[in-house]
């Protein structure tokens, strides 16, 4: 019987993979469901096992089952891992994703699974932490804080109970690497968390997954049950979010696990000192934790050997939006933005010129193609007024209206604000109104206070566009410095970068081209 591999990743299913798998199994093939390789243009992708190795076909429709099995399907790709999109990657974290059956312990072990955990457990906790420090691993959730130092703090705190929490809230648009990993290689995350538990002395862990990811929730729960005996005495539990972006912020996330409203806590105390239920807590992104098994099994030097400047190791870049080769591209830091978008990504999917790319999710800056020589590195992006965030790159073609995108950033902030601080809660709504006025060219009238007889030296209501823009910059400044967390604090990034790099879209009375419509 022929063995074939079909992804059961949510993205592949959204493109029809279930029907394809059914058709293949009806045609007599033995179907193994894997995670996704991460190049969505090829999904549904089918790989057929042959004596020469796996032969890929994609995209495939359910009606094509027979052609795939006899090898005559026109979308024959040959060895998928030899395609340039994959051959150019350095897959440390995602080595098994799309290759193995995500829930098979045998597969995981056969591909080198648990070696990191075994190595870690043979070491005293401090030595495991030293390895993570030496690897140079920095948090992949957004802030880029060195993971080893965070672990050290939790290790050094003395408390009867400690926790390891995995942040799988992945709320940023344009990112999906956490989801891909949880669906495609859940044991890797479990292994990383168990290593963290050993290193800091924690016996309980939580994985907080957003409710928008039902497939990842199911896969993780099943994987936890299957691996329970291996990671014991470390115990894991999945907690499900409820559609609040701000719960990705670490302290809001902890409140949410505790069953409260996900409001941001003021720091200090750091979660590493007083986190979940007031105990010392390691909180890391999925990708930070999933990078750890490699570091322990292959050695910190192997990880630190690649990278750029102070950004060591690999970064799972996610190419999204209007891009031809959308998907996951894991590579050492330092590739330029242009290489990623044009060479790897293949430019826009619509075939029109690229106008802007947003890096790092809804709080990341927009960059024009003139800045494509920027190397992918935490420091370089910060210097250019942006951030890497969770390493998602969303590509837009020339039909996008940047004033509209700036408005969306403010609207999103208003929608998701936890409400704790005024610049974010109120400022974002005022920001939407301001940008609306810029877009429509409408002038505001004097308000009730301005009409009072006492207000003699007030200019009245109407402001020319230049003054409105100045006010918008002022508002951004207030939000940036007056907000408790990065939601309010970073919303100015997309707004200001749109304003700086695409001023023509904010021209007085510029017509709003229906953004992103075809």
């Amino acid at each position, binding site marked *: 019987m022929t063995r074939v591999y079909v992804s059961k990743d949510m*993205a592949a*299913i959204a493109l029809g993979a279930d029907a394809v798998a059914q058709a293949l199994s009806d045609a007599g093939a033995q179907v193994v469901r894997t995670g996704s390789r991460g190049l*969505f243009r090829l999904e549904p992708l089918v790989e057929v096992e042959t004596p020469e190795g796996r032969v890929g076909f994609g995209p495939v429709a359910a009606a094509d089952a027979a052609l795939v099995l006899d090898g005559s399907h026109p979308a024959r790709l040959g060895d998928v891992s030899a395609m340039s999109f994959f051959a150019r990657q350095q897959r440390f974290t995602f080595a098994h994703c799309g290759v193995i059956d995500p829930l098979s312990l045998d597969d995981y072990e056969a591909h080198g699974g648990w070696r990191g955990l075994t190595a870690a457990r043979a070491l005293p906790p401090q030595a495991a932490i030293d390895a993570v420090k030496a690897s140079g691993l920095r948090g992949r959730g957004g802030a880029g804080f060195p993971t080893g130092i965070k672990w050290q703090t939790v290790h050094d705190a003395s408390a009867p109970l400690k926790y390891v929490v995995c942040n799988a809230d992945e709320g940023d648009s344009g990112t999906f690497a956490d989801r891909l990993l949880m669906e495609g290689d859940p044991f890797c995350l479990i292994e990383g968390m168990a290593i963290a538990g050993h290193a800091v002395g924690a016996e309980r862990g939580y994985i907080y997954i957003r409710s*928008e990811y039902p497939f990842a929730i199911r896969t993780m729960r099943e994987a936890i049950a299957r691996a329970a005996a291996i990671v014991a005495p470390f115990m894991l539990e999945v907690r499900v979010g*409820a559609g609040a972006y701000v719960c990705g912020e670490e302290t809001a996330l902890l409140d949410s696990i505790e069953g409260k409203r996900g409001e941001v806590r003021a720091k200090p105390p750091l979660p590493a000192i007083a986190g979940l239920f007031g105990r010392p807590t390691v909180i890391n992104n999925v990708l930070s934790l999933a990078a750890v098994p490699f570091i322990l099994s292959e050695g910190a030097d192997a990880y630190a050997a690649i990278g750029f400047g102070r950004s060591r190791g690999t970064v799972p870049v996610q190419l999204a939006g209007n891009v031809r080769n959308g998907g996951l591209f894991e590579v050492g830091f330092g590739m330029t933005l242009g290489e990623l978008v044009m060479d790897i990504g293949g430019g826009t999917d619509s075939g029109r010129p690229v106008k802007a790319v947003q890096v790092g999710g809804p709080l990341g800056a927009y960059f024009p193609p003139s800045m494509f020589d920027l190397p992918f590195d935490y420091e370089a992006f910060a210097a250019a007024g942006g951030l890497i965030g969770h390493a998602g790159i*969303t590509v837009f073609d020339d039909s996008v209206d940047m004033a509209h995108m700036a408005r969306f950033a403010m609207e999103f902030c208003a929608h998701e604000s936890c409400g704790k601080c005024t610049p974010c809660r109120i400022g974002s709504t005022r920001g939407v109104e301001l940008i609306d006025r810029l877009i429509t060219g409408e002038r505001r009238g004097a308000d009730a206070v301005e009409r009072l007889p006492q207000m003699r030296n007030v200019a009245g209501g109407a402001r020319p566009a230049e003054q409105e823009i100045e006010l918008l910059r002022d508002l951004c400044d207030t939000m940036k410095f007056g907000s408790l967390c990065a939601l309010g604090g970073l919303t100015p990034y997309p707004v200001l970068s749109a304003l700086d790099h695409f001023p023509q879209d904010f021209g007085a009375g510029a017509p709003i081209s229906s953004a992103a419509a075809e």
Partner: protein
Amino acid sequence: MPLLHALQEEFGYIDDLMVPAIASALNISRADVHGVVTFYHDFRRQPAGRHRVQLCRAEACQARGAAAIERLASERLDLRMGETSADGRVTLDAVYCLGLCATGPNAMIDDVPVSRLDPTTLDRLLGDLR
């Protein structure tokens, strides 16, 4: 939260009448429960339609034409985002990112994810909802 998720799964929404019972079961105040229910976008206080259509509205889908799909769905169902049809057939909701960002516009219809929505597919899928 796990309790609220379970209740919503069972009844489709969290009735205000349930709040006192939840509060006493967890030994917290009614205000606390109310605060949690209203904070999270997922929890609803009114029954939803028999079918739930969630359209992604985040940046990556916008870059692939989500705005046009949203307008079309709104027109076909005669609902605005967040509304439920009078006959209780369908609820139209916005979602901010389903993590399928390279193949938008995306939607989740009941529990089935759908990518690369175009007007024809959308019409067919909406027509299938009874």
